[in-house]
């Protein structure tokens, strides 16, 4: 093959290599700009990923739903339709195996398990990673523990998530209406 042909192929591959991250960015930007934001109550813990750095894993309170459909296979796609409760936090409106024709925001995710006849299906919300600067992930978790001691109901941790057409982008993690970074700054100053 001639050099110029190889070069043209290389340019095609290079464009693909640029396109994939660019597409990832554009998709998320679109959701962030035009999506509707929901608050999901959560609890963070801090692990890390060898390539992408430190993050905190978010365990959402919303992880199951009542359903009349008892045959859910592990790993099956599930559409979780959302509504807001009286305090402004997201809650499950309904779940479905197929996309429903209703005017509600939804999250597309996977079934974790369901107990044969309990009419409850468990799932994991797909925005469970919040990346933080490596020195901050562990303190963030500690701060969370501090604010949620004795299981008080006054302090609320939640994730702010933009949702559009089933796609979700995690914006930030909040403790009592302040971003988690705000508490880290207070800690640093003390």
């Amino acid at each position: 093959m001639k050099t110029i042909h190889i070069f043209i192929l290389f340019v095609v591959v290079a464009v693909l290599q640029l396109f994939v991250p660019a597409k990832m960015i554009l998709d998320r930007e679109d959701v962030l700009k035009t999506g509707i934001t929901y608050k999901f109550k959560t609890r963070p813990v801090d692990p890390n990923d060898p390539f992408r750095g430190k993050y905190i894993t978010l365990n959402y309170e919303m992880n199951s739903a009542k359903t009349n459909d008892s045959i859910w296979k592990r790993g099956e796609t599930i559409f979780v339709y959302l509504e807001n409760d009286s305090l402004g936090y997201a809650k499950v409106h309904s779940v479905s195996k197929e996309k429903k024709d209703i005017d509600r925001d939804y999250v597309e995710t996977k079934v974790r398990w369901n107990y044969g006849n309990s009419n409850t299906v468990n799932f994991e919300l797909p925005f469970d990673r919040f990346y933080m600067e490596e020195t901050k992930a562990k303190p963030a978790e500690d701060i969370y523990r501090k604010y949620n001691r004795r299981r008080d109901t006054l302090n609320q941790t939640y994730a702010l998530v933009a949702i559009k057409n089933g796609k979700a982008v995690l914006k930030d993690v909040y403790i009592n209406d302040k971003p988690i970074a705000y508490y880290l700054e207070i800690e640093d100053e003390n």
Partner: protein
Amino acid sequence: MKSKLLNDISELLENNIISQEVASNISAYYKSKEDNQPNRLFTVFGVLGATLVGLGIILILAHNWDNFSRSIKTCFAFLPLVIGQIISGFTILKKKSQAWKESSGTFLFFAIGASIALVSQIYNIPGDLGSFLFTWIVLALPLIYLLKSKAVSILVIVFASYYACELGYDFGYKDSTPWMYLVFILATLPFYLKLLKTSPLANSTSIFNWLYVLSLTIVLGTFINSNWPVGFLMYAMLFGVFYNIGKTPIYKDQQLRRNSFTVIGSLGSVVLLTILSFNIIWEDLVKRASIAINTQEMLIATVLLIVAFVVLLYSKKNEKNESFNLFQYVFLIVAIIFFIGVANAIAATVLTNILLLVMGLSAIKIGADTFRFSVLNYGLLIVTAVIVCRFFDIDIRFEVKGLLFVAVGFGFFLTNYIMLKKKKELNR
């Protein structure tokens, strides 16, 4: 190396062993050979440097710089990627040396990973390590052929194995089989086959020999879902494939340190059979006799059996008067024993032990016939392993066990001594 050669030539000249003309011919030959060879050291250091810089960039980005805005971080995500692409493009267009190709390819490989890692980080994109590695490998794979880069090919094989282990050895709730691993490996094969054709004896080619064998051995286990007893059969067939590939004309006459197929095929079979020589394994297998024919594990074992058989026929076709080598047929015997074992554990245990013993004895015979101490002692080790293992599950008195050990040890001395003597006599 070169100066030593020159010294030798001048010594030979002085003693009138060779003429002046021959001497100048020899030095001219080696000089031209040297000129034709690209600077290997430069390539190796280039690749090492590119790897370190690439990994360094990934780590720096993984720190997650909170202070920068999202748009600045996004620019940083593309920076290493674009730099890598410009260097690689330049290398192709200007037809730079192999060292350039390998280094720029390696750097671009890591830049791709860095860029998607940073984007995932900025937008908190979930998805496990597996899917991240998948995207990375897909985007990097064409570079093997566009840059004709061995380094990128090695990286792709290593990362594909990493991807497969991440996906398949995850005993969580995701029971997935890394089928795409096979596609990745198949995609790298044409490059490897070309290497085998052009430079079968190069050190870099033997790195690939080992890489493929180790990768497949490690990853095969990820294709076992729940029928783990069939996993034994799968591995026995894989080692059968390896051993017989090692006996094909391309590899047959290569040194053992290059011929990973023979080494791992033989060692793997012996280790596997030693495990299967315990009755306990077969009893458990009979209990789980629900070995359905149409399971994924059985399908893979069957495919591997067919491949091993085809390779066996191919290697036999190419050698007319070669003596019978039991190791080449071991996979077929294991397959038969396995199906006996599903019904009758004791019979299978006894047969496995006999097979191992016969394998040991045949290795001893091959070793003695060809005067190769390594093969002889390998055979002795197999026999010893069988005897030692049987001490665990057979109830015999201690003094008898002790006597047996002494006898086996004595056997080692004796056989080696006899062969050494024979060899000396022959040399005389």
